[in-house]
């Protein structure tokens, strides 16, 4: 029976997940109103930043984090892969602090989506646990390595890390453009004894083909080893690693692509809970700086998952590739400047590159991009 005064639709918004989403969104709005009021007329100590500027920065970080979380959900990747390169390329903030915060971004993106994914049945907790053994330990080692390198390499280390990351991000952008042809339903011909003994597979319902899917897993020892390597890169560079975990699970372990994509979020959330601690205990996580990024990821992840998942489109993929290409340019030029290989890039050149990237993305979205390497551009 419906309660008096509430329609069915209203009642829907008083239940999970809409209720907590509403409470969190309202808290964010009230919080930034309060912060703005506090900053009015506040005194500024000599050499410090004005409170009004701090509030503006925090609001900007929150909005950016929220947008990154939504783009990430729509593009089917983690937020860290956008956040870390973007911040490193276009802000003066120290790279260790950015990478540490990048792990928080990737982790909370994974954590908040774990609940619905576990409930849906597509996510597989047993698979996540066994893979986290490799991913988490690799990430922990990578994080320790990042802190060790940061303490010894100074400005040349900052430059080298930006250059390497620029190369990785460009390679990822090109991979998303041309190489992301994945097998949706990998064929498992032979299951090894170890994988069979663990009894990991669980059936799930696939609405697109209206069928209950049973699948098998293989090569788990190799899969755990691959996750260790992926964790190492993720922990060192402070990025989420969905771009590597998903193909790893699909191609090595042989799980369907949908299970791989969903379980990768659970693995990243779980594994980064281990990876992030060396950064916290070394002082690379700054509470007031991290807070807006964390909240933006949680709220953006929830909104993306509940409201916008239905509008996933090819356009988002092109926008993401554009972001990655432009970010890669920023990282490489900033890295070369820090290594004193070139002088600082003129802002006009930056604007020209941005306009070119925007034009290419726009052409790709409307399907007018010229054919490359004889391949057809998919619409």
């Amino acid at each position, binding site marked *: 029976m419906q309660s008096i005064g509430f329609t069915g639709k209203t009642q829907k918004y008083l239940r999970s997940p809409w209720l907590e989403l509403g409470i969190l969104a309202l808290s964010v709005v009230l919080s930034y109103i309060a912060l703005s009021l506090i900053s009015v007329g506040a005194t500024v100590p000599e050499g410090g930043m004005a409170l009004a500027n701090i509030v503006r920065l925090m609001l900007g970080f929150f909005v950016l984090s929220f947008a990154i979380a939504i783009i990430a959900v729509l593009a089917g990747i983690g937020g860290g892969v956008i956040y870390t390169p973007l911040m490193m390329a276009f802000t003066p903030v120290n790279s260790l602090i950015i990478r540490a915060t990048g792990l928080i971004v990737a982790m*909370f993106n994974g954590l908040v989506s774990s609940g619905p994914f576990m409930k849906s049945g597509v996510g597989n907790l047993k698979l996540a646990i066994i893979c986290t053994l490799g991913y988490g330990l690799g990430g922990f080692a990578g994080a320790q390595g990042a802190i060790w390198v940061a303490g010894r390499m100074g400005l040349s280390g900052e430059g080298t890390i930006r250059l390497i990351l620029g190369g990785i991000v460009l390679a990822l952008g090109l991979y998303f453009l041309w190489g992301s042809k994945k097998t949706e339903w990998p064929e498992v011909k032979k299951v090894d004894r170890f994988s069979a003994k663990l009894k990991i597979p669980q059936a799930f319902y696939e609405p697109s083909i209206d069928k209950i899917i049973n699948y098998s897993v293989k090569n788990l020892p190799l899969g755990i080893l691959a996750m260790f390597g992926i964790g190492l890169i993720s922990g060192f560079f402070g990025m989420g690693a969905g771009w590597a975990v998903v193909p790893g699970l699909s191609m090595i372990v042989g799980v369907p692509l949908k299970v791989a994509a969903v379980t990768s979020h659970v693995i990243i959330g779980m594994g980064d*809970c281990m990876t992030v*601690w060396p950064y916290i205990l070394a002082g690379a996580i*700054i509470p007031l700086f991290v807070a*807006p990024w964390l909240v933006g990821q949680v709220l953006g992840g929830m909104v993306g998952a509940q409201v916008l998942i239905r509008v996933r489109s090819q356009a988002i993929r092109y926008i993401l590739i554009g972001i990655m290409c432009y970010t890669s340019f920023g990282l490489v030029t900033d890295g070369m400047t820090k290594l004193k290989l070139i002088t600082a890039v003129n802002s006009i050149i930056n604007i020209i590159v941005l306009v070119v990237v925007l034009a290419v993305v726009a052409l790709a979205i409307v399907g007018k991009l010229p054919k490359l390497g004889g391949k057809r551009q998919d619409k």
Partner: protein
Amino acid sequence: MKKPELEQPRPQLVYGEFVYWLSIIAALICTIAPIIALAFPQGDILDPHYLFSALWKGEAPNIVWQQATGGFPGGHFWLRNLSSGDAIIQFGLELGCCCAGVGLLAASISYLSQKPRSYGWAIAALVIAILIGLAAAGIYQQTA
């Protein structure tokens, strides 16, 4: 065809619930605590004025802590300063960073309480939870 009801393993649901709600609580704490941090900056561990100034100059973490508070007080500094805004943020953050460990502990208990009991998976979940606990305790730590 109506979506068929597939029963999900209970430990999986338990893990999902714990992680989901704890990360939302962590986000709520990190939403509200900055108000305290900026309203009463004199009570903060890190002076926000100098903190953001040092951050925006690209200073390394140890210099940021040095300029904003006189040195890094340790990752779990919130334990001794729960009345200050940034310590409350740090508490929320660490709560979120522990939530997978708590979820796995609950999942481990769930593996043992279901029929038939699944000792192997209970131990595996417990091992990851212990590893998260050890990482949080700072089994091996460096300063940045």
